[in-house]
């Protein structure tokens, strides 16, 4: 079953995120693919996340597709103008990739090429609208194409950044533009997430798109502190930092926290699934899924 069909069925979805290597080594991806063979409905491949050069998202997706996984490519507006975006999307479709997550992208100054020209020809809402138009068989220019792609379009959402009401409004725009699933930033503050979900339910957005809440297992308190300090738009409840600092084995505690958060998310009305982001720790995914009862 494809991700598109699974969204229709109403089961609790699990997607996971995988970072391609900073080299041309496809074997790294094939090794990581093993961890996502069971229980994962879609694997996101990041598109040069934090503006650091990595193996291309589409090429990685093709490798995963050959390994029998269902890849979700990420498309950011940071590096491509409307011509490159459309051409890459057609290329991805020709390779058999059917899911695309449309994002704005991090600013280049975060990465290893801070001097690069930021493109941002479109923003994520416009990108989603453009992919919707491609699905209808028309280029952005309005010209028709012979064979149209059929992408399942996703969007990102950050429930933790200010201003909260605008976050939900922007989500509504993305859904109106054609997004069918939404993946959020990692949840480390359930209170704030519930508040955001409340607003999402109030406007009935959870019925129009599948909301997948992000979960990130971390290895140490240092990683949490780094995220809180240096990654903009991430909010971490101080309880988690304290627990990680006090724990005898921070790795075990990190797993416990991730499983706890997944359990809590299952109980929130309107959450259709979880989006696992084991940053450089893909090997832990099967264990977390097993402990939270999502291996099926």
């Amino acid at each position, binding site marked *: 079953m494809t991700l598109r069909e699974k969204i229709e069925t109403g089961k609790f979805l699990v997607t996971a995120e995988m970072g391609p290597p900073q080299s041309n080594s496809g074997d790294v991806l094939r090794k990581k693919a093993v961890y996502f063979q069971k229980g994962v409905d879609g694997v996101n491949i990041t598109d040069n996340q934090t503006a650091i050069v990595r193996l291309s998202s589409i090429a990685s997706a093709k490798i995963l597709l050959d390994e029998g996984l269902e890849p979700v490519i990420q498309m950011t507006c940071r590096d491509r103008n409307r011509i490159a975006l459309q051409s890459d999307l057609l290329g991805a479709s020709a390779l058999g990739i059917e899911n695309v997550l449309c994002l704005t992208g991090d600013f280049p100054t975060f990465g290893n090429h801070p001097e690069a020209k930021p493109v941002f020809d479109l923003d994520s809402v416009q990108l989603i609208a453009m992919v919707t138009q491609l699905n209808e068989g028309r280029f952005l220019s309005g010209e028709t194409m012979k064979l149209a792609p059929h992408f399942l379009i996703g969007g990102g959402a950050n429930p933790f950044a200010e201003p909260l009401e605008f976050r939900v*409004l922007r989500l509504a725009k993305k859904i109106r533009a054609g997004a069918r699933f939404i993946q959020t930033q990692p949840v480390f503050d359930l209170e704030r997430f519930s508040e955001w979900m409340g607003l999402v339910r109030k406007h009935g957005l959870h019925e129009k798109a599948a909301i997948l809440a992000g979960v990130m297992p971390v290895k140490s308190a240092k990683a949490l502190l780094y995220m809180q300090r240096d990654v903009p738009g991430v909010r971490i409840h101080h309880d988690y930092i304290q627990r990680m600092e006090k724990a005898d084995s921070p790795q075990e505690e990190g797993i416990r926290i991730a499983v706890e958060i997944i359990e809590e998310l299952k109980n929130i009305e309107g959450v259709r699934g979880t989006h696992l982001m084991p940053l450089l720790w893909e090997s832990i995914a099967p264990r977390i899924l097993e402990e939270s009862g999502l291996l099926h």
Partner: protein
Amino acid sequence: MNTLFTRDKGKPKYWERFLSRWMLWGENCVKVPLFGCQRCGECILSHTAFICSQRCPKRLRNGPCGGIREGGYCEAYPERRCVWYRIYGRARWMHRLAFLGRIEQIHNWNLEKTSAWLNVFTKRIKPPTLFIWKKDPYDVA
């Protein structure tokens, strides 16, 4: 009919270029000090509570990215306030939130550094919407 963006109408005529230069001078005198205009030539100031959204380093036209820092500061330039954070605050104060619910058109980069007022007159861009009756941003198509 393309609603995602307004099609480019080709090269400006000589009189347009001449007039654009003078009108841009007039626009700069007004819009730069008052609204922080960035001369994108495709003005949506009336939709963004009269703060120029193009001051965003990513030039976003549809709302803030996910990278706003604590207290509403910019992801790329931590010392600056996020322009969309300010737009939201002012739109709420001015009761113009409904404008923020619309999906803005994709920018025509040929219009950079041209006069938006003249572009409205020559029908290169859509005229600004100064007022809408609807107050609910989720209701605006």
